[in-house]
């Protein structure tokens, strides 16, 4: 039981982390909390289901959708989010609107039935008494690699430095000749791409429908607040806390408890350390 719960914990952590990672990048650069992150994620899941059921090989579908969603994200930034940039609340409201639209679109095109995709890999491995599904282990690995790469890219690569520079000091960045506007667009693209990646990954593991978006994005919000807004490391730590808390909660204490754990964790963090575990201090007003 422990190992299964742990696997589940890792899996949840991975999904939350990758969803939150995108949110953080977008927030860092544009000061926008994209509430529609989850909706875009679910949209990618639905696209994936159509492609894969349509006979497109999984990996091609994955790459294709991630690419498309990245472009879509850039489009959104150019057309919509740019206008409310720096206005977190305005951004929230806009993204609420986007959620409504995306959900409606999904219901129109795909209908309300929950959808399932053929497994990525069948089968499971036994470790002692525990039996662990291979595909989840695989996905955990993939996500872990992606996150590590992303983190490295963010801290080491030139682009990463540019991103972080823009996030920290926009004026300074533009003075150094960084094309801030383009950076923002790309950042939003990356964020959406990560959402898409998360979406396709989840789609191939669990049954999904439009509700998945809302619950995931709220969880991701909680994650980035716990971890500290604007900190990718924090996002990953927060995701792990939440993922494991839920997995072990529902394994050992029942579901109701597991539902409350994230909320309690959030309250605790906000009261003890409002700026989150890895967050920079908040300015008090």
């Amino acid at each position: 039981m422990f190992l299964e719960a742990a696997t589940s914990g890792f899996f949840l952590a991975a999904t939350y982390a990758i969803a939150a990672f995108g949110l953080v990048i977008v927030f860092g650069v544009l000061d926008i909390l994209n509430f529609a992150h989850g909706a875009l994620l679910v949209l990618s899941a639905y696209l994936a289901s159509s492609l894969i059921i349509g006979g497109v090989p999984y990996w091609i579908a994955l790459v294709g959708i991630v690419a498309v969603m990245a472009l879509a994200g850039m489009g959104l930034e150019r057309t919509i989010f740019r206008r409310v940039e720096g206005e977190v609340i305005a951004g929230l409201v806009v993204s609420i609107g986007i959620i409504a639209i995306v959900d409606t679109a999904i219901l129109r095109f795909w209908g309300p039935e929950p959808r399932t995709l053929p497994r990525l890999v069948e089968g499971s491995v036994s470790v002692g008494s525990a039996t662990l599904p291979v595909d989840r282990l695989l996905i955990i690995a993939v996500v872990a690699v992606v996150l590590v790469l992303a983190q490295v890219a963010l801290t080491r690569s030139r682009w990463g430095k540019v991103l972080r520079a823009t996030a920290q000091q926009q004026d300074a960045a533009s003075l150094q000749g960084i094309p801030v506007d383009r950076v923002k667009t790309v950042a939003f693209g990356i964020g959406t791409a990560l959402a898409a990646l998360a979406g396709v990954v989840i789609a191939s593991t669990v049954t999904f429908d439009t509700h998945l978006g809302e619950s995931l994005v709220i969880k991701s919000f909680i994650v980035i607040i716990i971890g500290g807004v604007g900190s990718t490391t924090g996002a990953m730590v927060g995701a792990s806390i939440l993922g494991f808390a839920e997995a072990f909660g529902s394994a050992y204490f029942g579901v109701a408890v597991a539902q409350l754990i994230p909320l309690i964790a959030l309250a605790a963090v906000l009261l003890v350390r409002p700026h989150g575990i890895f967050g920079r201090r908040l300015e008090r007003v």
Partner: protein
Amino acid sequence: MGVLAIAERRSTSSATGKDLRRAAPIVLPLVLLVLPLVTSSPQHHSWVAASLLWSLWVASLNIVWGYVGLLSVAQLALGAIAAYWVAILGARTDTNLGVLVVVGVLLSMVASVLLGAVSTRLKGFYFTIITIAFALTVSTILMNWDVAGRTTGLMFLRSEIPVIHLGPYELIATTTEGFYVLTAIVFVLANAIAALVLYSRAGRAMRAVRDDPQLARSLGFSPAAIRTLAFALSGALAGVAGILHAYSFQLVVPELFAIDQALLAVMLIVLAGLGNVWAPVIAGIIYLLLYQVAPIDGDLRAGLLGLVVILVILLLPRGIVDAVPAWRRAWAHRAASHSEEASA
């Protein structure tokens, strides 16, 4: 304009027009009370009653978000507290309904004030996310609490509302028309209160604190105290809305007060004009047209609303900018980027 305008009435003559304009949001809703004379169709009464409930939610949200600038997604959850209180004790004790309602409203008020206390620690979206968490907590508890009827909820029958004597007129809320009149009266009062608050010194203080807390403090305003006042008012309003909401469906279930409903209130208020005295009325009209009258598929309504919200924010931020001056910067920013494109 408040105090100033009143003084100007003595001096300048043009002030009367202004006062009319300011009286309108308080007086005009009285039109609602003549509706029963215009139409006797229960369908129309229930249409407008349902819409007025959303006007009430928006009025409550307008005080915290519009007046003091803190977006709360917890208003419906706050209302749920009052509604469930009345439902649970109404079913198990024979306490006087009036007492239950008053205490219920006070409970929502207290909860709201406590929630507001968080806002002295956490600003902006941090506060918003706290309210999300609060709403989730409430619904999770309700769904797992046998006394609250878990997911089945509890009945909340109008037939338990006693006949209310308004002078010669007897208000029997059991009928659709009676319930409509009750809702209309409550709304007219609530709306008038909300409007008067906005015009009062406290209202200006709220806007002062919203616009620039630092400056407000430097001039002797106490942001914490003023926010507390706003939260108390909006909490009480939410409590009233919650109880009426439950009576309208004659039922309390968690889904009536869920987050998606709160998001609907957010979209409505954004369209109606955040911080606008008219917001509740306009929001009610939008709801009436889109959710009651318009013969369109259920799953289209939300999408349509979302689309309009985005268009409003992008194309006429002034429509909602009223309460959020910073959005004008977004507008300016946009204008700037345009001119750049032009020059380039």
